[in-house]
């Protein structure tokens, strides 16, 4: 078996393993072992990838494997990774691992909970390794469906409404996406020959511009909905608010990245001319997302809503950067996905831990928590500083790469929207400091909180894992940035071939 398929197989074996144990404690241990192995494997993959590149392997995708799945429609199970997907896989490994420990205390149907969670993870891993559009779509759905159960059963608040809303909106996106993908498929052999779903094959042909114009918006919006593209982002606040901790972590941390990754790997890469023609519409929408999400976050009172709006703003920046279609900005987009994935997972983990203690998420009911739970308080401040782009943490590197990449465009339109996006650094500071001030600092408002305890070992493990990843990227961004940047070259070459100027 090839190393990439192992990424899908390990979660499935873990799920089988969970089925055979009874004790909730054992369920947790099996999950932790499975996802720990998965994290090691992801780490090994990064190492193997970099060694292969250093050894001079310059092929576009590494560790490729290809199996015919349904010959009549030329559907294959094709996997392979470049620097971008390796980075996304490493992110997923970290977030899932931290997510398991953040849900250590789930006591209602723990077995089913961990099964759904890990199934979801296998879908995400499968998505990032796929090079066949059909397989990719299949894994995409595998990742989205368990979400419904996870929110509907283990959620809080108006959970049925939230689960329904989230699933229906994402399914609406899937429907558009499916049409888009099939459109690409039917146009994948304009010069005759068999149609194909293989991304690398399609990238070599020239899809007629009329077809591109029709299917680019579909694929982009289809993926964009998952990436919280304005005005299709409203599933995000409600969904996150109702979702259990680990699900919020995985969803904002990883699942939303499927949108950005897909937009970049499919919509832009395969339909570059239409992307170039129509990008201005989506650039306007995403720059609205960036500022609008940040303003929306300023007045929220629920910690999860604040973070959900903040995600709209940060993920808006991902799509914004993808649409800038130059190497630096796209590099920044991938970095931003990873950075946002880590820090938003950290945020949701901490919110879950705080909620588990105080039983409220309303910032006006809390205050002075720093004194009661210093570990969680410090971690929250670090997450906040990462979010507002403090140098030394991952957010800064990603944002700066995006801004400087986007500003390389010489025309007024691109530069003005860049300046609009840049202004978000101030608004972000406003809402982050508001939360930190109201939640952690000041006098203790509620005396019942005085006896609450600080983080337990599994919570510390979850938090520290994420903080280390955030700081590692922030302090030494060069290797990650280079790994991603080198893999963008084929895409840049293709873009420069078809786009005039």
């Amino acid at each position: 078996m090839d190393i990439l398929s192992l990424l899908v197989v390990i979660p499935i074996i873990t799920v089988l393993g969970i089925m055979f144990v009874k004790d909730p404690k054992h369920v947790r241990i099996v999950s932790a072992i499975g996802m720990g192995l998965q994290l090691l494997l992801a780490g090994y993959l990064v190492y193997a990838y970099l060694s292969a590149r250093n050894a001079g392997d310059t092929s576009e995708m590494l560790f490729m494997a290809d199996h015919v799945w349904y010959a009549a429609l030329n559907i294959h199970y094709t996997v392979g990774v470049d620097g971008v997907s390796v980075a996304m896989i490493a992110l997923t490994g970290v977030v899932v691992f931290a997510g398991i420990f953040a849900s250590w205390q789930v006591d209602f149907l723990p077995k089913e909970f961990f099964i759904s969670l890990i199934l979801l993870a296998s879908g995400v891993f499968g998505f990032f390794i796929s090079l066949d559009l059909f397989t990719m779509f299949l894994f995409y759905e595998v990742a989205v469906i368990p979400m419904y159960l996870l929110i509907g059963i283990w959620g809080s608040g108006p959970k049925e409404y939230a689960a329904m809303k989230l699933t229906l909106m994402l399914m609406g996106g899937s429907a558009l996406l499916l049409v888009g993908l099939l459109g690409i498929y039917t146009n994948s052999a304009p010069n005759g020959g068999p149609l194909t779903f293989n991304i690398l094959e399609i990238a070599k042909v020239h899809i007629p511009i009329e077809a591109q114009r029709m299917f680019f918006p579909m694929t982009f919006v289809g993926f964009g909905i998952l990436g919280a593209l304005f005005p299709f982002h409203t599933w995000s606040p409600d969904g996150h608010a109702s979702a259990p901790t680990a699900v919020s972590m995985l969803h904002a941390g990883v699942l939303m990245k499927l949108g950005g990754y897909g937009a970049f790997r499919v919509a832009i890469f395969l339909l570059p001319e239409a992307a170039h023609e129509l990008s201005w519409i989506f650039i306007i929408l995403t720059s609205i997302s960036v500022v609008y999400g940040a303003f929306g976050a300023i007045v929220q009172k629920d910690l999860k809503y604040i973070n959900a709006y903040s995600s709209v703003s940060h993920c808006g920046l991902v799509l914004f950067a993808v649409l800038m279609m130059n190497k630096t900005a796209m590099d920044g987009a991938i970095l931003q996905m990873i950075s946002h994935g880590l820090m938003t997972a950290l945020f949701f983990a901490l919110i879950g831990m705080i909620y588990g203690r105080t039983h409220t998420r309303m910032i006006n009911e809390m205050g002075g928590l720093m004194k009661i739970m210093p570990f969680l308080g410090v971690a929250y401040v670090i997450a906040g500083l990462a979010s507002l782009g403090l140098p030394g943490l991952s957010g800064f590197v990603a944002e700066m790469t995006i801004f400087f990449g986007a500003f390389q465009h010489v025309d007024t339109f691109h530069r003005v929207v860049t300046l609009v996006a840049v202004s978000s650094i101030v608004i972000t500071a406003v809402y982050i400091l508001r939360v930190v001030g109201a939640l952690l600092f000041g006098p203790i408002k509620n005396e019942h909180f005085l006896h609450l305890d600080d983080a337990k070992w599994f919570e510390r493990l979850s938090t520290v894992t994420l903080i280390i990843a955030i700081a590692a990227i922030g302090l030494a961004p060069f290797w990650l940035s280079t790994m991603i940047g080198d893999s963008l070259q084929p895409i840049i070459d293709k873009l420069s071939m078809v786009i005039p100027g």
Partner: protein
Amino acid sequence: MIDFSFTVLIPLIPIFVFLFVGLVGHKMKPMVSGIIGTLGLATSAILSYFTAYMYFFRVGKVNDVYQSFVGNGPIAKTVNITWLQLTDKLHIDMGVLLDPISVMMLIVITTISLMVHIYSLGYMKGEKGFARFYAFLSLFSFSMLGLVLATNIFQMYIFWELVGVSSFLLIGFYYEKPSAVAASKKAFIVTRFADLGFLIGILILSFNTGTFDFKSLTDIHGTAITSGAGASFLGLSVMTWSLIFVFMGGAGKSAMFPLHIWLPDAMEGPTPVSALIHAATMVVAGVYLVARLFPVYALSAPDGLTVVAYVGSFSSLFAAVIACTQLDIKRVLAYSTMSQIGYMMVGLGVSKYGGEAGLGYMASMFHLFTHAMFKALLFLGAGAIIHAVHSNVMNEMGGLRKYLPITHVTFLIACLTIAGIPFLSAFFSKDEILSAAYHHNRLIFVVQLFVAGLTAFYMFRLYFRVFWNKEPHYHHTPHEAPITMTIPLIFLAIASIFAGYIKFSHFVSSDSIPFESEIEWMNVAIPSIIVGLIGIGVAFVMYKKESNLPDKMASGLKLLYVGAFNKFYFDEIYLFVTKKIIFNYISRPVAWFDRHIVDGFMNAIAAVTNYVSLKIKGFQSGQVQQYAFVFVSGAILLSVVFIYLFSK
């Protein structure tokens, strides 16, 4: 070739101390973490002094020109690594740049920081979070040292943000106090807004010049300066605009009008922090930034320098007027800091590039140096006073000279220094700024001369009210500070007296070529001594003893007094912008729009679907008669439509 690679340790030692004390500090005795912090900084200070000696006296000067060392050069070698490659041309480096002003700043920062470390051993003793305090002090020292050693403008921006966050953490040190939390938030957000300008400036500047490196930017034969003008926009060249934006960042950090509003509130932090960050080092970062880019300003964007000069001059006047009315001694010092930084900006703003015309540049750096000494002394003295009487407000002080002899003498020295009394350090540095202004802009010269008088007045108002005047009823007898606090006071007092005798123009100049500068007695020095003495005299008459003169003055100049007392209502404007405009008029509508319009639309789709399916589910009734009726009706309807369509 000299290997200066060790200089990288100067900032690195404090960051290791920060990590160590931050992670395990709560497990140690508090005093141990304080001593570790102090020793760490002492090591950095020794390295800095060694670097300064090597640079200024051994290898820095080649053919009478001070060299700037960065990376591997023919004479010296420093650390410089590529941290992040942004585009083909633009890359962010992390490294060490040694030139006269960066080495001078090393001395200033490590000296003041070491004094503050020692002082805090006494001042912060017994405070909760003692270890945390030392961790944050180390973080700040790291960031500030990284800032001045930056080899490129982006590295500077990175450390710029880091000093901002250290300042935020230290202002909010007493995090249980709502006013401290609010002040730290305000400081961060206002400077962040200014940093937005800085970032935009960097974006434009780097796009037009293709580099972040200071060495290429300030190379007088380089492209940035020779072809820098570029296209024009609203009457100014793009280069000028970018430098004005960069200056906006500097103005925010250095508390220049109208971005100064955070500085007085920042006094919520512990007093040693005010001395280190909000008087001697961080707040002069804006001056340092302009000085660092000075050749670009002077040669390719002189209009930018004019902006610097006027902003600096207005700020110094504005702050001095407010300082005359404040009652909180730390706030008086804060406005005084703002006013003195205004002087430094004026020095840069009126300066030209090269030789004697670059007097303002040298004077500005000189004043930065002396100001760091005497203002740190003033703040640490204020700390000793607060330590003794447990209050910040002048009304609760008086007659303290008997109880705090050492503090009294050192404070008096600092007051005489800032008032510009001859042969103390600020006399030299301030007069050289005035000289530069005299030769290049008479209006600014007159304003600065007036401000010099105001400075003497408000400082001696403070001095007389605290150390003389009527003694209030003290709850317990004020006592002199412990030795850890008085040693830094004495050291800084000595520095304040003698720092002026350094021949600064032999070390720092706009074009790195040493020159001679003389005091202009007739035009500048004597007028400035006279206004200084007048200021002291007025303060003596009004405040030496309790009298009703101050009240008479206040009612005589009622409008001005009330305005200045309320800081000309700038805090209210800030509150209006943040609370009203951003919170109520933008964010609330956005949130409402999102919940009700955007999301309402999505919910409406769901509701319509729901409604339609409720209605049409009646069709699936199972009644054959109904199906037959619908079938026949449909057939008739279709027939009518077809007949209508085809009968034409």
